[in-house]
């Protein structure tokens, strides 16, 4: 194959609607690339597991230059389809490694900023109880929660955690209820893995830690700090590779690391203590300089009280 002219034809396949935090980051990066004129972008959302393979094939048959998606529940099929369309580049979210000839993977490795938010949270909580509401206990969620907990414990060994999974990717009212329950139990800080948690925090006048996307504007005075995920480095890298005909099966996961700008940490300095922010900023620099490595721990986090 030869180097391709921009705009490249890119399609994305999502198993959830594009509003879902995780997918929204990919959607945003691709939309930006489209606005830049690098790609023409089309997508299918809420694609059932059963239909995933067909959708992949349809896009490949349509002559897409690159197909982006999440292979989490369809690993084997996705890799098989990819192998049958060597002309198309596949960039899929996956917990596994890349495979030949054209299947690259990425993941939301923002455990680093999560650790930093944990530090802020650990030094901010007064009750020493932090509530954490997650969707499902899957690696992508667990690793961020674990990093957060580690960060908090690093600055405040007294902190206890309450952990609940609502077993749904979206049920904001339910997430909100879980958060309320934690507040009732004494949590004065919430880790908002899901939509709905920050709403509870805002309503009860306590603080929350954001995750993946920046919602500070939606909850003024509530979001203490956030670990943000940026898909742009990953997507842009892949687009370049496809355009220059140098797309290889590779693990793009590292492009979510802070060093590549794939993850970032923000704290609301009006809400966090200056000391805590300073400590986090120092740690951030250590991470960027490669002096500190945050553990990747995919096991299910448990309540510690």
């Amino acid at each position, binding site marked *: 194959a030869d180097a391709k002219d921009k705009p490249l034809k890119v399609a994305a396949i999502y198993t959830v609607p*594009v509003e879902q935090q995780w997918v929204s980051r990919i959607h945003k990066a691709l939309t930006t690339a489209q606005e830049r004129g690098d790609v023409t972008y089309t997508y299918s959302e809420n694609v059932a597991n059963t239909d995933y393979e067909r959708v992949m094939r349809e896009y490949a048959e349509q002559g897409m230059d690159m197909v982006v998606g999440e292979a989490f529940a369809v690993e084997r099929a996705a890799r098989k389809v990819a192998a049958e369309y060597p002309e198309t580049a596949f960039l899929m979210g996956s917990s596994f490694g890349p495979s030949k000839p054209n299947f690259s993977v990425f993941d939301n490795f923002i455990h680093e900023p999560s650790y930093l938010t944990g530090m802020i949270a650990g030094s901010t909580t007064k009750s020493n109880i932090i509530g954490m509401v997650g969707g499902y206990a899957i690696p992508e969620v667990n690793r961020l929660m674990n990093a957060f907990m580690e960060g908090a414990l690093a600055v405040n060994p007294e902190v206890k955690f309450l952990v609940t999974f609502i*077993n749904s990717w979206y049920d904001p009212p339910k997430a909100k*209820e*879980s958060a309320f329950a934690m507040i009732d139990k004494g949590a004065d800080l919430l880790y908002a893995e899901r*939509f709905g948690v920050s709403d509870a925090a805002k309503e009860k006048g306590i603080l929350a830690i954001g995750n993946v996307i920046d919602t500070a504007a939606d909850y003024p005075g509530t979001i203490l700090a956030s670990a943000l995920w940026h898909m742009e480095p990953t997507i842009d890298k892949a687009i370049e590779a496809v355009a220059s005909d140098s797309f290889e099966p590779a693990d793009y996961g590292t492009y979510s690391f802070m060093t590549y700008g794939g993850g970032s940490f923000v704290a609301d300095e009006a809400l966090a203590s200056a000391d805590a922010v300073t400590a986090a900023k120092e740690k951030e620099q250590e991470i960027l300089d490669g002096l500190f490595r945050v553990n990747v721990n995919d096991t299910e986090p448990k309540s510690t009280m």
Partner: protein
Amino acid sequence: MDFLEIFLSANFWAAALRIATPLVFGVIGALICERAGVLNLGIEGIFTAGAMAGWMAVWLGAGLWGGVLVAAGAGAFFGLIHAILTVPLGLSQHVSGIGVTLFATSLSYFTYRTALPDVSSPPRIEPFKPLDIPGLSDLPFIGPALFQQTALTFLALFVVAATAFVLYRTPLGLAIRAVGDNPSAVESQGLSVYGLRIGAVVVGSALMALGGAFLTMSAFDAFFFGMVNGRGWICIALTVFASWRPGKALLGALLFGAFDAFQVRLQTDVGSFIPGQVFLMMPYVLSIAALILVARKADYPRALLTPYFRGQR
């Protein structure tokens, strides 16, 4: 154990009531339909339509109560479809209901996405706020339990009372109870079987839609795909549990809400050694257990599921 502590906390009961509110709308809506002899499995879709339409109306500037009206209207619309299919046309109530669920859900999603093609985060509205009534809100226990609630919760409680009154105290309620038991009794007294049934299904469906609207306008402030998440189906179960009585329906919804609120609180305690799903199962398993207990006495509307054709026996 701090079980007792949980039950004694006003916040717990406030949560139970909050979780119960959409179910109260739904179960009363389902009850009205079934009392008239029509099972409405469209409920899950009608919830979704109510959630979407109500939210969208507010987002477009209709105001909160305007949104409530729009949601009710959407519910009534899908109720009318179900009513026409099942009452004069006499089609299977099961399949029409599931068809309405598919239709209402997909139409809501399609409309939402077509109207908002490029959102990466769902737009928010300013939702109903908890009613803070000076004096009452300060009452011990009752105050915080009741007055953390929004106007829609009070509307739900009012709907229960109004439904009970209409069913048991007015000629209209008498006719609805009769048409669900033996439509020819109603026809022989010069009333319209179709009119009563269609009316009941439309009104019941409008109420169901308010349950959906509560989710996007009070429990939360944005619309999400899949946010109804089986709440409609639960209402169908609660209707049987309630033996088709409004008072028991409220009780059932509250019990369910309490299970759910309890489950959420318990999970963080013992969640470390019992899988979370066990807690999530609890409300369903307990509903089944409760059904087994009430089954012997269950007093079905005898004409439920049976279409009525004039002059046919």
